[in-house]
């Protein structure tokens, strides 16, 4: 599956995602420039972490208005896969592809540490290789990961099964202590209703190689590779 990694001015995890997709998983990858409105035939679009447009105004606010995001929106609306990591998640919220908003971390500080995540959906193209309730250890590195929405909309999000990852203890218990940023209901990652757009604050690409001491993140990317292969098969079967 061809993955397009969007490069906004200020993106800084673009190389990391590209590296995992291309050099760890040996898949086709391309960088997509923020001023282009072509996705170069990529089936998976990744909005990487960083500080797109310097996070000026609000994290993700300016990036949401860039030419490439018009194309990404059309791609998502047509059922194409979109993954937003950290700043990419913030861009998805600002674009309206995912509901809710980010506030500054509860302690008002940038926080970089390993957190544990409980997997709540395994039927998505992003999570097919994970088990229900599986606990992942992944790094976070952000100052604005405090997810928020109105209680009614949060209820709707939960009812729709759109909460994909929640901050938890190493044993999977979802507790206030395991929440690193104050996010509502320990939400770390959510999907849209159709399940083809995922945003999450932690960085799976930073935990995808044994030499770095953690491969918990690789399953997300492997799930996508598998989903891509399935998609190809089904297209083949239809033809």
């Amino acid at each position, binding site marked *: 599956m061809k993955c397009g990694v969007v490069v906004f*001015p200020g993106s*800084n*995890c673009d190389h990391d995602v590209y590296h995992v997709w291309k050099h760890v998983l040996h898949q086709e990858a391309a960088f997509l420039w923020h001023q282009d409105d072509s996705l170069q035939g990529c089936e998976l679009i990744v909005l990487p972490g960083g500080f797109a447009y310097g996070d000026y105004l609000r994290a993700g606010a300016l990036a949401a208005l860039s030419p490439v995001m018009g194309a990404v929106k059309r791609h998502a609306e047509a059922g194409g896969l979109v993954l937003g990591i950290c700043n990419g998640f913030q861009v998805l919220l600002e674009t309206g592809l995912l509901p809710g908003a980010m506030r500054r971390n509860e302690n008002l500080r940038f926080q970089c*540490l390993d957190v544990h995540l409980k997997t709540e959906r395994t039927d998505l193209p992003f999570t097919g290789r994970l088990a229900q309730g599986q606990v992942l250890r992944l790094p976070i590195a952000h100052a604005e990961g405090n997810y928020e929405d109105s209680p009614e909309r949060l209820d709707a999000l939960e009812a729709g099964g759109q909460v994909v990852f929640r901050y938890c203890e190493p044993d999977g218990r979802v507790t206030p202590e395991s929440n690193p940023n104050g996010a509502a209901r320990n939400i770390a990652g959510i999907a849209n209703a159709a399940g083809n757009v995922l945003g999450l604050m932690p960085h799976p690409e930073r935990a995808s190689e044994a030499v*770095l001491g953690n491969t918990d993140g690789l399953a997300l990317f492997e799930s996508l590779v598998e989903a891509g292969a399935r998609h190809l098969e089904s297209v083949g079967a239809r033809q």
Partner: protein
Amino acid sequence: MTVTVSEPAVNAETARSIGLTGEELERLKKILGRDPNWTELGITSALWSEHCSYKSSKIYLREFPTEGPHVLQGPGENAGVVDVGHGFVAVFKMESHNHPSFIEPYQGSMTGVGGILRDIFTMGARPIACMDALRFGEIDAPRMRFLIDGVVRGIGGYGNCMGIPTVGGETGFHRCYNGNILVNAFALGVARRDRIFHARASGAGNPVLYVGSRTGRDGIHGATMASESFDKESEQKRPTVQVGDPFTEKILLEACLEAMRTGAIVAIQDMGAAGLTSSTFEMAGRGGTGLRLDLDRVPLRQPGLTPYEMMLSESQERMVLVARKGREEEVEKVFRRWGLEVVDIGEITDTGRALLTWHGETAADIPIQPLTEEAPVYHRPVAEPADLAERWKAPEVPQPSDPRQALEELLATPELAGKRWIWQQYDHTVRTNTVQGPGGDAAVVLLKGTPSGLAMTCDVNPVYCYFDPRRGGAQAVAEAVRNLACVGAEPVGLTDCLNFGNPERPEISWQFREAVRGISEACRALSVPVISGNVSFYNETEGASIYPTPAIAMVGVIPSLASLPDPWFRHEGDRIVLLGDDRSEFGGAAYLRLLYDLEQGRPPAVVLDAELRLARLLRSLVAQGLLHTAHDLSEGGFLIALAEACFGRRPMGARVEVSMAGADLFSESQGRALVAVPPAALEQVLEAATTMGVPAREIGETGGADLVLKSGGEVLSAPVARLHEIWSTALPKALGL
């Protein structure tokens, strides 16, 4: 059009007001053969400032060994370059930003990080790691919490946005920094060996391009300010502190690296201290060329800047480059694509002079090399402190009434407590290279595309340096080598940040001379060249000087990462071995200083050949994959190191028996390390130590929930969870968080 600018008259008094002495003014007049104008005087003041010219330190810095089998570029460029194998080079340097950070901690530390990063990518290398050596005063000193918070936020604010991990560093607290904190920023970049760029102008007729942010009035005379002591008015110097914009620098980084690949760039230099002046003069000075600048073309943030202000502004995120004539469009295209301003502001000439024009008139016309290469050199008077014998008198060492209580009290001091509160605010995992992040002996990052790793560490003990700067300088180098050896890394070079008081005072010059001597001796004995560095003098407030603080940042290569040990206990049932000689040495020791407020005596001996044997042994044991844990003994001695080894991601206890007892558990004898090995490897490790001439004894084993230590017929026992709680919460508690 004639524009009248009201500028001060040039005379000895006005020259002194911008940092030039009467003698220096006369020297300038002789070089010019006439009186300088105000712009020329300002340019000279910046170039001859201590910060840019090293005029008080030059005669000593020559002592450093700067060559070695791996060194491709020693001191004198934007950063040093060493070969790290597989066709790659590491480019690194450390620089101080002390004065600005004390005046405005957030912007001061931000621009410290920004400046050192530009030094790295100016050389064509992509920065992949940062470290910071920080020295704060007592937490309860005036403004100190504000300074600590601002500095930490600033370092994070810049590095996090740039996407360059801050993987290590060190933080110390001492009352000598109450009025003058230290912020030393280190950065390391990696490049292909054949793709290094230099800041050496050449080719008459080649255009000079200005890239990046516009020029404003911020930071004017920053270099001169950094060359003065502090007084009550220093707060008013806030306008001389630059303002950082990491977003622009991130774009500048990407655009520069891309533009360098066009092959159309001859030379490139960032505008750091003394901005447009030092960048253009140094580039032309190194290349032996002249240059012509059309100051009307310099992009300005606001109208009305004078030539003097343009030449001395330290607005951040700006670069100057020399392009190949006829190919400037290729370079310009790249910068425009990234949304950056790029302007042709002049050309290289063969006159050897800098000709600056403004509004159709000559703003300055001065010869370049006499200013850059023949800056004044001072042999300042040197005097050993009169009370040195008194300072060296061996201290009376009180025995702890309860070693466990002493341990807990020490773990609760900001000095020895865990520093997670600081480094958790720094992104240390971006770029997917970080194998060992902050909190260990040395940080380890991948050299992507190879089996190798790069290790780096920052070290110095200012109390040792105060009592014996020569020993202190040597100790900093030896400890850095030891820290690298704990991860199996062989050192390839070091960079330094030599922070001292006012060199016009003979005792300070003595401290400097002795420290440089100690560093040089250790570098020769341990085969580590000095490849870059920085001197920061005038670190004093109201006449009170900081302790001499020659911070050392050392880089090493780990041939293979397959068997990297942890700095903490990894497996239950491992055998613990103590390497090196235990002696009773308390000069400048943390035990006396932190528990009894007593600083006294000559610091521990630094036995360089023993350090060398220990480092060789550790590297060999790591390479053979025999170690699960390796952690060096430093501040606080054996018991602090043992406790720290218990504080891994999964805290783990140990049962240990040693012959030393009482206060000696906290002695700071050098040349020691703790290792933990699987039982099957114990014999091999002890034999290797014997063969390589390193004293070694098995002292116990890992495991359990308690740290249990038998010593001198007594048993100390403490739950690791409790010790860890004390150690990990002490710093935020002390900060009132």
